[in-house]
């Protein structure tokens, strides 16, 4: 009986638990500041278990519907967990858990005295991302989008004293434009359909596809989400924001924010509008692929020009987002699988890389790549993690980067877009160029001033998440079969083939 109460409400609890935990953090911090970390970690762990259970339920028995307040849609707000958001949710929860473990020492050093609000906002960010992902109601999506945006602005602003604030402000302005566009799009869709429920909307929309309002709504959504994910011409906020945020925020935001943005793009394109509309009628996917291809190349090239490690990683994110959207935009099952798989892969790799950057900064205070000499001996574990994640970004087989690249290339071939094949392959060489520079500096040579390098590894609570993430880089590189077979293949078919979410 009591067990039933919990299992029946798991979809809601996915979001409610971090939400309430976020509210309680100030009170807990007031009792004892040290408790905060345990509180956050425990919460994230529970959330992770819940998302895992949700995903298993979805795989075994199909889509989960949860009606808030018992009001049937479209009257009330509904949570719909299908393979797509079950998959994204577990990524969010997992990365959130890893970064929360890592936060303990990092926050102590980088943000002394701000622990309590930091942890509170941290949980709220996870809440926001989770809520955006899991919801089946278009306005509820907007509310959680705003929660996640506000928390992200705050987490970025507390970084480097001078630059972080400006970066955050620029992000805020861009983000507000994006959110306003999305709000406008929601209003347009509401005006012509009269409903806010995504599934309901998808049923109504096909009858009015020749309505200009629908097209405008799609355009506003795409513009808004493009800003949110940092798609190439609209990426200008992204490098600064990632560079100047505190290490933990960078890892979380780079690992998750853009992924959730990409998720939202996919959801709106295929779960609110129909594949027929976005693929054939408006050719939105085709436009998306070209923008993505451009992002891949430009992001990689700009990454080569950077000497600040985090800024390099930020530009690399610009290019990696291109991978995801390219795969989605190809609009065939294989390419879609590649794009969706890259959501997982990039979350794992990029979080690991940012965590490494944070650990190096924690120990040495260095962010410039050219000063990394001798680091391989000083921090062997950290740098090994960097090596693995970096190779993964390059797309060496046996790591996650390879699997998604394989699918993307195959998908591009399937679509007959040989230019994209070329771009993907070229970009992996560009990735090689900017990562190898770092490898060289880490593993070769001595720092000039130090004779004997002492081993000086990051604290254990920072090492564990990094090592786990690096392990996952390899695990999913070798066992990519499981996510692909159980989740992504049926998912891609669902998104493209049937289109309507059950």
């Amino acid at each position, binding site marked *: 009986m009591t067990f039933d*109460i919990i299992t029946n*409400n798991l979809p*809601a609890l996915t979001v*409610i638990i971090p*939400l*309430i935990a976020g*509210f*309680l953090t*100030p*009170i807990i911090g*007031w009792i004892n500041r040290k408790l905060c970390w345990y509180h956050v970690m425990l919460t994230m762990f529970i959330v992770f278990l819940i998302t895992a259970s949700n995903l298993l339920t979805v795989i075994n028995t199909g889509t989960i519907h*949860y*009606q*808030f*307040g*018992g009001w049937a849609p479209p009257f009330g707000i509904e949570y719909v967990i299908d393979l797509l958001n079950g998959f994204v949710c577990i990524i969010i929860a997992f990365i959130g858990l890893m970064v929360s473990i890592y936060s303990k020492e990092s926050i102590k050093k980088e943000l*002394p*005295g701000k622990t309590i609000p930091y942890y509170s906002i941290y949980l709220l960010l996870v809440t926001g991302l989770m809520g955006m992902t899991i919801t089946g109601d278009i306005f509820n999506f907007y509310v959680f989008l705003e929660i996640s945006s506000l928390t992200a602005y705050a987490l970025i602003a507390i970084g480097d*004293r001078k630059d972080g604030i400006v970066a955050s402000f620029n992000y805020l302005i861009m983000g507000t434009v994006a959110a306003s566009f999305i709000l406008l799009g929601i209003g347009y869709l509401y005006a012509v359909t009269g409903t806010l429920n995504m599934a309901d909307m998808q049923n109504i929309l096909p009858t009015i596809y020749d309505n200009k309002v629908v097209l405008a709504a799609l355009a506003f959504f795409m513009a808004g989400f493009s800003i949110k994910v940092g798609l190439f011409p609209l990426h200008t906020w992204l490098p600064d924001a990632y560079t100047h945020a505190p290490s933990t925020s960078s890892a979380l935001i780079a690992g998750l924010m853009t992924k959730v943005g990409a998720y939202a793009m996919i959801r709106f394109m295929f779960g609110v509008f129909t594949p027929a509309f976005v693929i054939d009628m408006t050719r939105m996917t085709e436009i998306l692929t070209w923008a993505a291809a451009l992002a891949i190349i430009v992001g990689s090239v700009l990454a080569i020009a950077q000497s600040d490690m985090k800024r390099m990683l930020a530009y690399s994110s610009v290019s990696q987002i291109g991978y995801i959207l390219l795969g989605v935009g190809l609009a065939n099952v294989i390419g879609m699988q590649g794009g969706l798989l890259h959501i997982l892969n990039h979350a794992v790799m990029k979080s690991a890389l940012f965590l490494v950057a944070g650990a190096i900064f924690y120990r040495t205070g260095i962010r410039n790549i050219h000063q990394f000499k001798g680091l391989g001996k000083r921090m062997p574990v950290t740098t090994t993690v960097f090596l693995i994640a970096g190779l993964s970004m390059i797309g060496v087989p046996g790591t996650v980067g390879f699997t998604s690249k394989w699918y993307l290339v195959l998908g591009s071939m399937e679509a007959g877009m040989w230019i994209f094949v070329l771009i993907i392959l070229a970009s992996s060489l560009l990735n090689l160029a900017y990562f190898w520079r770092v490898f060289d500096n880490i593993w070769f040579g001595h720092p000039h001033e130090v004779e004997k390098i002492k081993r000086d590894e990051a604290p254990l609570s920072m090492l564990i998440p990094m090592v786990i993430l690096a392990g996952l880089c390899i695990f999913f590189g070798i066992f990519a079969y499981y996510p692909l077979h159980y989740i992504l293949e049926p998912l891609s078919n669902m998104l493209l083939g049937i289109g309507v979410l059950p």
Partner: protein
Amino acid sequence: MSDIQQSIIIRTIVRIMIPFILLFSLYVIMHGASGPGGGFQGGVIFGAGIILYAMIYGIEEAKKKISDKANRILASGGLVLYAGTGLLAILFGGMFLEYGVIPLMPTTAYTAKILIDVVEIGIGMTVLAVMISLFFDISPPETEEDMHIHEEVE
């Protein structure tokens, strides 16, 4: 202290007005069920009352009336009250925020009415606390040590 803050007339008027403002805000919160108003508007008005006080009597003085700690409890507490109502529904076997399942009153509608008021109060608490703390934080610091606190902490 500016001229306005020193003006005895204004100080007196503010002192007299504030109870009415606060009373009105409570009315707005509770009246949300049957007329315009609700937790938000009421909370904001309550917050505005305190802000008015702080403007005239100074933030330090206002903090004596409503301290940081109280603020924090109100902000968190309001939300916990709201979310707790939702969780209570879960405990009674319903969905989150399903007021009808809670056996508080004989009819569902009546229960819902009561709980809507509870929820509005929760919203009001959070809003007023946050509004006040926003003002306290954003308005200029009054003492010298507050001015330069950032350098020492970070």
